[in-house]
């Protein structure tokens, strides 16, 4: 168990619902679920054996105190942010955001599945876009392809060769971005300071340690 995880488990004892309510974004909505299952039936990835536990089950597991099972589950990471569950929920639960919130919390505690590709994408994307203020699409792609090591990256790159060539031909992929050219914000320093402050304030508000 990571330190953060131990600390939180100790702080909330057996009250996992309360932990989620206070720590996960939009977690206070979990108790309002009425178990109709519309979310489960609305999830696009559900049809492709994506979810181990659809939102309805995740909510029930939270209420039943299944802390470990929920936080280590790959389920939340399957969300495509399509907001289908969100608009269909008869109780108006912001399910998409709750799923994101639980996933984020699991990640902060170090409980998210190792090598989870969507988590990796999230990390890479945010680091990429906050570095200069804008996304560097080439570097983003490279980072994603090479996440499993150099050889895997080359293989993946070859698989995707046609896709990339098509984009280059259509002037929609600027190879020069790889060398640091491309779009960026002028006030990068201001952005970094602003984000550092935001992280600090968020940790303070949620009464937990600042994470990078």
């Amino acid at each position, binding site marked *: 168990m990571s330190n953060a995880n131990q600390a939180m488990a100790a702080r909330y004892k057996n009250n996992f619902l309360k932990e989620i309510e206070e720590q996960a974004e939009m977690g206070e909505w979990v108790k309002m679920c009425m178990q109709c299952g519309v979310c489960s039936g609305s999830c696009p990835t559900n049809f492709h054996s994506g979810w181990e536990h659809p939102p309805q089950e995740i909510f029930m597991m939270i209420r039943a105190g299944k802390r470990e099972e929920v936080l280590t589950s790959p389920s939340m990471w399957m969300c495509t942010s399509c907001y289908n569950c969100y608009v269909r929920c008869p109780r108006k639960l912001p399910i998409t955001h709750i799923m994101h919130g639980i996933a984020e919390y699991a990640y902060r505690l170090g409980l998210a599945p190792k090598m989870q590709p969507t988590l990796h994408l999230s990390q890479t994307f945010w*680091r990429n876009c906050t570095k200069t203020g*804008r996304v560097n699409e080439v570097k983003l792609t490279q980072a994603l392809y090479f996440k499993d090591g150099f050889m895997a990256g080359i293989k993946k790159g070859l698989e995707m060769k046609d896709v990339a060539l098509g984009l280059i031909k259509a002037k929609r992929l600027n190879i020069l971005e790889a060398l640091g050219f491309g*779009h960026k914000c002028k006030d990068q320093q*201001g952005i970094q300071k602003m*984000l550092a*402050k935001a992280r600090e*304030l968020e940790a303070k508000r949620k009464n937990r340690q600042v994470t990078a």
Partner: protein
Amino acid sequence: MARKEYAFYPGCSSQKGASASNYLTSVESMCKTLDIKITEIPDWNCCGASISYAEAGELPRHVMNARNFALAEQHLPGQDIVATCAACWLGARESKERLEHNSVLMADTQEALKEAGLQIKAIPEIKHMVEVLIEDLGYDELKKPVKKPLEGMKFAGYVGCQTNRPFGIHGESFENPVYLDKLIETVGGEAVPYDQKVTCCGGALAFSEPDKAQAQIKDIIESAYDNGAEMLVTPCPLCQANTEIYQSQINKKYGTKFNMPVLYYSQLMVLAYGGTAKEAGLDGNVIRARKLEEFAAK
């Protein structure tokens, strides 16, 4: 003076050389015809998109959007913000909504903005370009400049997710929004009915879970073909990219023979307004829209 002026938030993908650069080309041309002035928000930054949720957390995400609000307010006072990208629009609107409804979050945001020498007074309205077209101008106005109606061409209006949910276009249903079909008809095309209009293309999971995303994309393209569409039309850069660039991979995996061009609504409008293939950004399509290129040349 132009009849409408907006603070323009193009977003990372709609920059020169980026994955939706042809969207930008067509939007600029379309706005010129419609006498809409769009001024880029100086030094705007990335919205964070939905996918950054895990790494970013809550406040940093809102702060990123808040920086754009503050810059727009400061440099382009009184103008609504218009975004062309679904994710930018959604991210910005979500932040606006949360900040306006949560005073704690707003106070924290102001404190963080101070670090960059900025502050928010009143967050401007945030519109998608489609809202500008439909609500601020209206279909009748959009029809007026049509010189070359896209007669006899069949399009599947692919609305997708984030311009449709959770905010959507005012007055439209989540399950069957019709604005895109109406836009197609406004420029003289035929909008075919099909059942995958609001199906998710996989979004960012096209990168992280390509098998799942491509299965979804396959359903969308297949349904468009089955219902007689020649081309797909979308208001979202990620929808456009996902449904277009993975067709060759899907063909390999499923043995399909997909080769369906995927256009932006703005490209159709530019062509109907008599614009050239270049002005419409047709050269930016990976799957070339030959029929439209010939149409533009006529």
